[in-house]
């Protein structure tokens, strides 16, 4: 079916940003995701970040792969061009687009399946190139659109909806990013809009490749007892059927907490995901320290969120390629074509 336009409710003296736009100017089509899906809150945070940064929507470009998460580029910034590519290959398309025009703001949206399995190679190589973009990895630990298979982000011991237990070690996008040279690495939670929005704004403004690993629970296939990527309290609505296409509506936990404190997202079995904000004393500019911290917190079974690492100094792709600032599509053909005389001259060498 065709996507529905989102009804615009014009509110009196609604807050306008620096370029005179209201928050709803950053909306997109109506989401077709499940009620309560973490991805929808990430979408809201992205729209809000662009609004608060007063970026003209048409100056932004949205790129995504394939998956429920990747669909969300349709659900915000309706005045920005979007490119919903093929599964796992968003980084290449985004990199090519950015090479063609480095003057726009690029945001990529992907999922843990899209980025860590089929797309792992492209994800890593975009980081190596330090492509100037924000890469949102909406992580629910599974392949949701194909109905709940484990992704490479599934934790050891996490139980699938159908019961099997994951035995393989997860690929931690943050740890991976830190080893292959990413220059902005963060982690957050779809339920923590404040922290997430702040990180998105920072990531959009970072020069180079920024990645945010966002825990974004799937209420339909990975929100049950035993899942390590769930909103625990939705578990009781779980229903098993021959054609299990029933999805219970669910609100999200909107987490709020102060620096230093630990925010527990309760799991039904008493297990807990701890989200701890980095104390302000933390210096996220030491790659090795950040990596050590990330891996250590993993062992302690808690997810370290916030800005994990940032380094503004490395050259981005354009600089590494010594490419001029003008978009490639804005260079007049006259400047590109050596002309007939030059062609004649260069062929002297072939006689």
């Amino acid at each position, binding site marked *: 079916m065709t*996507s529905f336009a989102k009804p615009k409710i014009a509110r009196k003296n609604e807050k306008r940003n620096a370029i005179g736009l209201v928050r709803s100017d950053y909306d997109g089509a109506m989401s077709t995701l499940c009620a309560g899906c973490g991805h929808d809150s990430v979408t809201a945070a992205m729209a809000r970040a662009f609004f608060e940064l007063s970026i003209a929507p048409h100056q932004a470009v949205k790129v995504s792969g394939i998956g429920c998460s990747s669909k969300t580029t349709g659900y915000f910034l309706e005045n920005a061009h979007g490119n919903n590519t093929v599964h796992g290959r968003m980084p290449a398309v985004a990199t090519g687009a950015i090479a063609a025009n480095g003057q726009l703001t690029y945001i990529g949206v992907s999922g843990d399946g899209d980025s860590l399995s089929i797309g792992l190679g492209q994800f890593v190589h975009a980081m190596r190139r330090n492509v100037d973009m924000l890469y949102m990895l909406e992580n629910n630990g599974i392949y949701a659109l194909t109905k709940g298979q484990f992704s490479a982000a599934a934790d050891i011991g996490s139980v699938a909806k159908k019961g099997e237990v994951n035995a393989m070690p997860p690929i931690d996008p943050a740890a991976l990013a830190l080893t292959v040279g990413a220059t902005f690495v963060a982690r957050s939670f779809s339920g923590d809009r404040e922290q997430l929005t702040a990180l998105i704004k920072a990531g959009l403004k970072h020069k180079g490749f920024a990645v945010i690993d966002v825990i974004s629970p799937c209420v339909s296939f990975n929100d049950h007892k035993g899942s390590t990527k769930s909103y625990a309290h939705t578990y009781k609505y779980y229903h098993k059927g021959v054609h299990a296409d029933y999805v219970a509506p669910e609100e999200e936990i909107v987490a709020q907490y102060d620096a230093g404190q630990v925010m527990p997202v309760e799991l039904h079995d008493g297990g807990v995901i701890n989200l701890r904000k980095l104390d302000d004393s933390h210096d996220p500019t030491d790659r090795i320290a950040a990596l050590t911290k990330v891996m250590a917190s993993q062992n302690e079974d808690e997810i370290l969120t916030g800005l994990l690492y940032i380094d503004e100094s490395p050259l981005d792709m354009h600089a590494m390629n010594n490419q001029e600032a003008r978009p490639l599509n804005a260079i007049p053909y006259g400047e590109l074509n050596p002309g007939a005389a030059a062609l004649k001259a260069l062929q002297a060498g072939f006689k």
Partner: protein
Amino acid sequence: MGALINDFVVKVGTVNGTGSASANGLLMKAIFRMGIPVVGKNIFPSNIQGLPTWYEIRVTEAGYSGRSGDVHLMVAMNAKSHAKDLACVTPGGFLLYDNTWPVDSLQSRDDVTTLGIPLAKMCNAEFAVARSRILMKNMAYVGAVAAMINLDMEVVHALVSEMFAKKPKLIPLNIKALALGYDYAKENFPCAKALKLESRDLTKGKVMMEGNRATGLGCVYGGATFGAWYPITPSTSVMDSFAQYCAQFRVDAETGKNKYCIIQAEDELASAGLMIGASWNGARAFTPTSGAGISLMSEFIGFAYYTETPAVFIDVMRVGPSTGMPTRTQQCDITLTAYASHGDTKHIVLYPANPSECFDMAVNALDLAERFQTPVFLLSDLDVGMNDWMIDELSWDDNYLPDRGKILTAEDLDAMEQPYYRYEDVDGDHIPYRTLPATHPSKGVYFNRGSGHTKFGQYTEDGAAYQEVVDRLAAKWASAAPKIPAPIIHAAKSVADYAIIAIGSSDGAIIEARDRLADTGLNIDYMRVRGFPFADAVSAFIKAHKKTFVIEQNRDGQLHNLLLTETDAPREKLGSILHYNGDPLSFKFVQAALIKAIGELS
């Protein structure tokens, strides 16, 4: 064998990684400088050092561009391939070998004159350094050959000076080495008078060039600003060429910044994606690869097709299937490039026959891709791409302007009464309008997707809305036929019952075979098809003949089958002549095959 003047073949067999390439290049270029047309074929291994490699130089006053199949003088410098080298000599021909050490596999043929020359011995006596001994041996055999075929040594010396302009110290060394071989041959091979070069004036306005270099140049002149690639033989030198000329012509004088971007991708899936992303965002983009790369790009090819994103794929074919023989030539991706990807997909394909067409068609490909907003394949092969071809000097029309196709500007959008829809056929030419990101604050935006969409660009799962778009895609593809380089018809002097259809690098051998057959009174028409979808003329040509032989370089008759399905030509009018052992086509093969095939008919 009577004396052959300006019409013979010299083949050099060496071990790769011993620097013989430059020596062979020198030999060929010297002949070219004497005004005599030459053809150079490099038969090299998929390896870096230590394996047999051959270089075949055909002297052809008539100026044919294919191989003859003959070898009149075999320079057998590699003991390991001695037997094979001897076997390939044409009766009455000569074999030159280094007799410094006994060649164990040394054999002789009474119909071949074997001439020994102590190259290593002479060079070791003359030169001290191990490395120069090896290099100079190459120059020494060039000298010997020069003496045997009457090569103009002044031309050779001039070339040597050019070659080592940056290292003048080396010039006397090389001259000396040349002399060693030259003098020895003059003294000891008085017999060998059978092969003779005579200066002519037939190479004026010509250049010797490989197709991949020309393709890279074509991308520069066509205004491509973005190239993505992943190294693969035999396509690598396309990007080497593009990079070289961009560095030469596209670096801003003041800022020193590049007006282009080349990205070496992590694999072919990525290079396709990079190219598509850049093109979607308005850069003229291309990616060179070979068969294996096209296989890996298949999913992205369908994405570009369905989203109507301009995309130029350059496939320099090599012998398949799988890894196959990376350093041998074939035309084996004809079916693949016509229909690449899952689902209903059809593409525009161009078939260059020589470096000149590589240059021109690279430009055509960039124009067609943006005009029709679809993938375009430039289907070259190793023979065209990596061998040395004598062609007319490349020329350029400074009035050319790229055809960027139907792109709407902000002004266009503001001027429109109707709202903009990405996939609407506004002009009835089956081609919709595209917009680039950031064109307009509130108009012309669209969401690019490989999933089902309506003509408005909306996501859909509605059968009718889906079908409306794919039906237009089929019509759009068909409408490209007249815009593609037209087939070239070589009509026989008199009305001919039989005809030939072929593409690409088979051209030279076919033209020559036709001439020889015409001399024997057998007239055959010949159409060289230059692109897909096929022009109407193709079907008409087939129908106009009793039998049309499709000559192609693959096992399965891929072009034959494509003609069968994509024209309305009657099956019984099509014959098939196949060559697929990986060697460039020779006129002898074509001639024999045609005689046999026609014989079987009558």
